């Protein structure tokens, strides 16, 4: 780790001010990716701006037909929140299976989606449930947020403050976890929302993506059998020592079916 300044402002405005004055400063939420990166000397920020003291960024609340989760809410809080469990159980289930207990108690939803790791679980929830990302300056639709591997629509100095999830009619999440890291090799969120059926896949590609053919099939019949014969091409999917692209393609269909079972079970 190289040395850096450490700041922990009390308001979002103060964060913006620090970031504006120091282009080499970096925001830290739970630090689940950033801290290991720093320890390996793979990043050299001038300052860390820790969001831990900003109370308004933390917590879960229901707002009409939506659930709003503060950016600094740890995964464990989402997993065990009574409202989330009651109204979007698939989201609680997803949060409960992220990483391990340490990660779930330190890692945050805002940190996860801002980092946009291709194997993170939350992007499948954000896109699959058609959430809205609330930032320090604006609101961004889920479909516009994740732009590429580790890339989002966030601009310099812009931070995620909350994620707003509309409550779906039903939803299910199925994940094939990486045996070592417990990230998603393939994770699929299937949801029947006010705007139609959505199928969002994480882990399989460079960034979370939707599968239109599956969405159409499920709109016709919301059952696992509706997905028979539908698969995504292996071309362009991730491939590594744990899962090749064609295995991932196979798992996308399989996890989608299991997500439908979870949603209807």
């Amino acid at each position, binding site marked *: *780790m*190289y*040395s850096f300044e450490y700041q922990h402002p009390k308001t979002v405005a103060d964060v913006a001010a620090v970031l504006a004055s120091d282009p080499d400063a970096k925001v830290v939420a739970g630090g689940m990716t950033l801290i290991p990166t720093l320890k*390996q*000397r793979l990043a050299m920020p001038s300052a860390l701006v820790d969001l831990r003291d900003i109370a308004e960024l933390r917590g879960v609340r229901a707002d009409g037909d939506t659930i709003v989760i503060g950016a600094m809410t740890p995964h464990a809080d989402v997993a065990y929140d009574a409202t989330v469990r009651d109204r979007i159980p698939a989201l609680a289930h997803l949060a409960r299976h992220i990483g391990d207990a340490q990660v779930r108690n330190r890692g945050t939803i805002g940190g996860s989606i801002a980092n946009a790791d291709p194997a993170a679980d939350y992007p499948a929830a954000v896109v699959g449930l058609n959430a809205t990302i609330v930032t320090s300056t604006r609101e961004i639709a889920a479909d516009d947020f994740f732009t590429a591997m580790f890339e989002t629509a966030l601009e310099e100095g812009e931070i995620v403050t909350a994620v707003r999830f509309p409550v779906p009619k039903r939803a299910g999440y199925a994940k*094939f976890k990486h*045996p*070592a*890291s417990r990230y998603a090799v393939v994770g699929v969120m299937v949801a029947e929302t006010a705007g139609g059926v959505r199928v969002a896949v994480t882990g399989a590609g460079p960034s979370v993506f939707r599968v239109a053919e599956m969405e159409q099939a499920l709109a016709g019949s919301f059952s696992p059998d509706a997905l028979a014969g539908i698969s995504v091409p292996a071309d362009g999917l991730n491939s590594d*020592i*744990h*899962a*090749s692209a064609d*295995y991932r393609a*196979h*798992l996308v269909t*399989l996890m989608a079916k299991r997500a439908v079972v979870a949603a209807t079970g």
Partner: protein
Amino acid sequence: MTMQQNPAKATGIGASVKRVEDYRFLTGRGRYTDDMNKPGQLHAFIVRSPHAHATIVSIDTTEAEQAPGVHTVITGAEMKAAGIGSLPCGWLIKSKDGMAMKEPPHLPLAADKVRYVGDQVAVVVAETLNQAKDAAELIAIEYDELPATVATATAAGATGAPVHDEAPDNVCYDWEWGDKAKTDEAFAKAAHVAKLDLVNNRLIPNAMEPRAAIGEYDRGSEEYTLTTTSQNPQLIRLLLCGFTMGLPEHKVRVVAPDVGGGFGSKIYHYAEEVIVVFAARKLGRPVKWTAERTESFMSDAHGRDHVTHVELAMDDAGTFLGLRVNTTANMGAYLSTFSSCIPTILYATLLSGQYKTPAIYAEVKAVFTNTVPVDAYRGAGRPEACYLIERIVDVAARQTGIDKAELRRRNFITPEMMPYDTPVGLQYDSGDFARNLNDALEMIDYAGFPARKAEAASRGKLRGIGFASYIEACGIAPSNVAGALGARAGLYDSAEVRFHPTGSVSVMVGVHSHGQGHETTFAQIVAERLGVPMDKVEIVHGDSARTPFGMGTYGSRSLAVGGMAMMKAIDKVIAKSKKIAAHLLEASADDIEFADGTFRVAGTDKTIGIAEIAGAAYIPHNYPLDELEPGLDEQAFYDPKNFTFPNGTQICEVEIDPETGITKIIRFVAVDDFGRVINPMIVEGQVHGGLVQGIGQALLENCVYDEDSGQLLTGSFMDYTMPRADDVPSFEVKTNEVLCTTNALGVKGCGEAGTIGGAACVMNAVCDALDIAHMDMPASPERVWRTLRDKQAPMAAE
């Protein structure tokens, strides 16, 4: 005399006493090497090679030496010029043609070439670790990259740049064992021959505590102290003094304090131990190095890594006639301390397994590659032997249609045949293999398996059952036999039993505990034998200045060898005490009986307790000074008559989800014969830990190198899958005690057993579930899925 009279009985042999170590380990009060900070201590950071194979063209340390806080930057050239020697290999293996194995030098810091990613190139010593790391970035090293040799199977004779000029074909040795002609004859008359090609995958040990070392040098007394994460501090002192640093032993103390797991990887003399001692002498300040986890992955000796072809000849009835084995074993880039004997002496000698196979012949070719050195890893050679035997037996059962249990039973060596001379050089002293198998079959309900398989099928799952009937050789010895086989060290052990004047006892042992619970089990034995309360017994280990010379802990040897040395010392204490008692009770020593801590004149009520004897020995006012020395402090060395042979049968049942390829272990049963069991709870813990490592190899763990670049692809826990609690079932274990006949305790050893059979047991179940002859480890989900897919549609693989 009743049991109630002796408080030591409740904690004696056979009692599940809770570990005396637990308080300090469970409450964070253990003292590990990295917990220690010496006054004036500096920190070492090691610059490691980013290349698998390269010539070092130049190293410029000028800028780094001037960086803040830096005391010195050391390179291989400096250590070489100072006469620092090569890290030695402790076992000489000779090739078929009688030539000695190739032993290229292994300098603590590479001087001319780097040979694996992680090879030590330079050391920065600074006031703080961060300063050392900052300075390390200022060292300019120019490398000239060479082609890397990586894959085991193709290393021998690989074109390109050999790993060492001393071995132009990359072959370290080409060794054979057993009777080739007799084995060829057996195959010539065989009715069935089962054949198999298999890979024993490479593993990274990953002890919970990373390696660490602190070097100290006192210019006034000229004394050195090395504190290190070692399984055998006395051996490290021997190698440090006799080979690498060239120091007089009376000036060197090696301490291995609390050590958080070893599994073999902390047996060896490592470069970092030499580096911190060298740096401490140079600077006159203590120097500490602690591995970061990434460093552990790329610098701790790895395990296994064999490519093998095996054939088993049988007659019509499935009786084994002969076994033929051809193995290529990966040594990595250099010979680690015991590397050469693992795929030879600890492997081929076990190829008889539990079976009366009359003819066995093995060839083993050891190759150098541009990878981390490979050495003993829990089980060390014996899991490799067990894996191929138990796999080929299952293949044979599949081929002949004979039930797997029946085929094993038909070929078992029986208790009546003990002691049994195997065709591969060992003499098994005892064991009832069929009983272990039968008990395990009953525990798992073998007869009910078809119904369970059918029920699983109704849920879309593939259920399989697998066996492993293993035997291992532990407590490697006698020393003269080991010496004749190439060992360059003795394999005895030692203990000193020191009675204190007021009745407590310190026992100094040459073996080392790094998770095995010796401080408990050894104290149980002492308490029972001497009849003193267990809380008055302390077991001292891990410090060359306090303990007699012993060879440390590995190969499940501590109790069978070190425990026997302790027994001998105890016997000496009792013998001397009898003479003192005879004097005090005014009787003949021949008339003195000893039991439960009390000496008695036979047939009388004249008695005296052992604590009083100790008092008399240290305050010898009424004492036979003409015949006896004062004091009660005895030392013993013990060299075993034979190896010990723990054995048993493991059975597991797995269910495979054919859609994902995920294998789940449903049940796991282990019936083990460890000889006499001292502490059943600790033994059970050892079995559990061993099984988890066996399961890890079978389903999860796999060290992967990029075959072109030689980069380690599984260099962190993000990619190297360590087994976790939710990956394993709740184990059902049982012990069948058949006492070892070659040591007085009757013990055989239990530290490795779970790992010896575990991988074979799981893979046999996986292959059974998939209804295939073989697949290689690890049976990861994708491999299983692919195997099923290829099996269902062999043409579709095009």
